[in-house]
């Protein structure tokens, strides 16, 4: 559902649950009022583009207020409950949530412009064309950012859990 994708993107861009909800609300209000001028066919990409632009505006504003505090400081809340498989035994779950925390942290530490490409490609499974539309950049830029993002993730994780 579009709303889940929109929330997921806002959450990953802002790295803060409350800010993500504010951005999502504002983006939806914008989307509904812009809708009459929407001429495309891909409503999901169009909505994500609005979410992304709203998120950037919010980040810019937040950066103005707090000069620092842009680090990956949301680890405590990012280990989430809804993705746990209820059937797993506790030990498997613990290992799994550790791996999850590690990946989440790596993703959160990626620069914003790289992070959004990875989220859109790997979690939303969007095409290069859709991602280019959403971030307002040429496809070549999407390709090189994805490559840089993945290389950073791969290198950062090579000492970690998954690159065994």
């Amino acid at each position, binding site marked *: *559902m*579009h*709303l*889940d994708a*929109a*929330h*997921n993107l806002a*959450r*990953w861009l802002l790295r803060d649950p409350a800010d*993500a*909800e504010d951005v*999502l*609300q504002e983006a*939806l*209000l914008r989307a*509904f*009022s812009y*809708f*009459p001028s929407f001429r495309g066919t891909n*409503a999901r990409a169009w*909505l994500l583009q609005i979410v992304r632009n709203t998120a950037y505006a919010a980040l810019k504003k937040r950066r103005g207020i707090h000069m620092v505090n842009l680090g990956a400081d949301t680890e405590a809340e*990012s*280990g*989430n409950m*809804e*993705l746990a498989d209820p059937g797993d035994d506790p030990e498997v779950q613990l290992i*799994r949530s550790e*791996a*999850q925390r*590690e*990946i*989440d942290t790596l*993703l959160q530490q990626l620069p914003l412009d790289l992070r959004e490409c*990875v989220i859109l*490609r*790997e*979690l939303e499974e969007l*095409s*290069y064309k859709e991602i280019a539309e959403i971030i307002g950049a040429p496809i070549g830029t999407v*390709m*090189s950012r*994805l*490559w840089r993002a*993945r*290389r950073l*993730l*791969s290198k950062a*994780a090579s000492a970690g859990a*998954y*690159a065994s």
Partner: protein
Amino acid sequence: MSTRENCDKVLLVQADFDGELDAAQSAALVTHRETCPYCREAWTHLSDTRNAVRQEASYHPASEALRRHLEQRLIRAGMTPAAAHRRPGARGARLLSWWRSLLGFGLGAAMATVAVLMLVQPVPSGDIADFVMGSHVRSLQPGHLVDIASNNQHNVKPWFDGKIDFAPPVKNLADQGFPLEGGRLDYLKNREVAALVYRGGQHLINVLVWPADGGPEAPQLLERDGYNIVHWREKGMTLWAISDLNTAELQNFVARWRTHP
């Protein structure tokens, strides 16, 4: 074999990995990977990274509470499915379907809230067709069609007793090709109404019934965003039949319904 530091084809390898290339390009890159250790290793890293991210990274769907909150917010801003209905033609239908794809099953809650808002904010009477259509669309969502599922009018009719202040005429037209599926309570404008659900082939027909304000009125045909609607008044009741049946079939249904004892 020493690993090269770089390869100018690596972005193409990545594009291949992401399924962005056609078969011929892809085949050429498979061949390339056989001779290029850098790209072969890159493929492995791409694959490991993807598995790690897709399997382990947190996905943040909107919670049910947030979904409801956003619906309320949009409704307060006047961005409702009913507003979508009122937009002319295909644009309104597109906005409606977009709303549905956005909020999914939440549409039911949104419509219920719209109905509640209508208690304090009277709307022009010409909007009944919009409400009828909203009720129909909502009834098509999973779990919203009927409150009582029964093919027997003798079960459906008493079910309404005590739930509404009138006795809706419940008829079963199974022998005419329109079996009764059940009934439910609904809210249109500022009152409770009875909804009777019939099936005509693959199509569902909602008949909304409530006490009439005026005398009898012959059936009139309307169309809203691809749905056909017939409304009429008889025996002190206002009736609205809506379906995606074509006009002839819906009129046929209404004619049979009216002549059925």
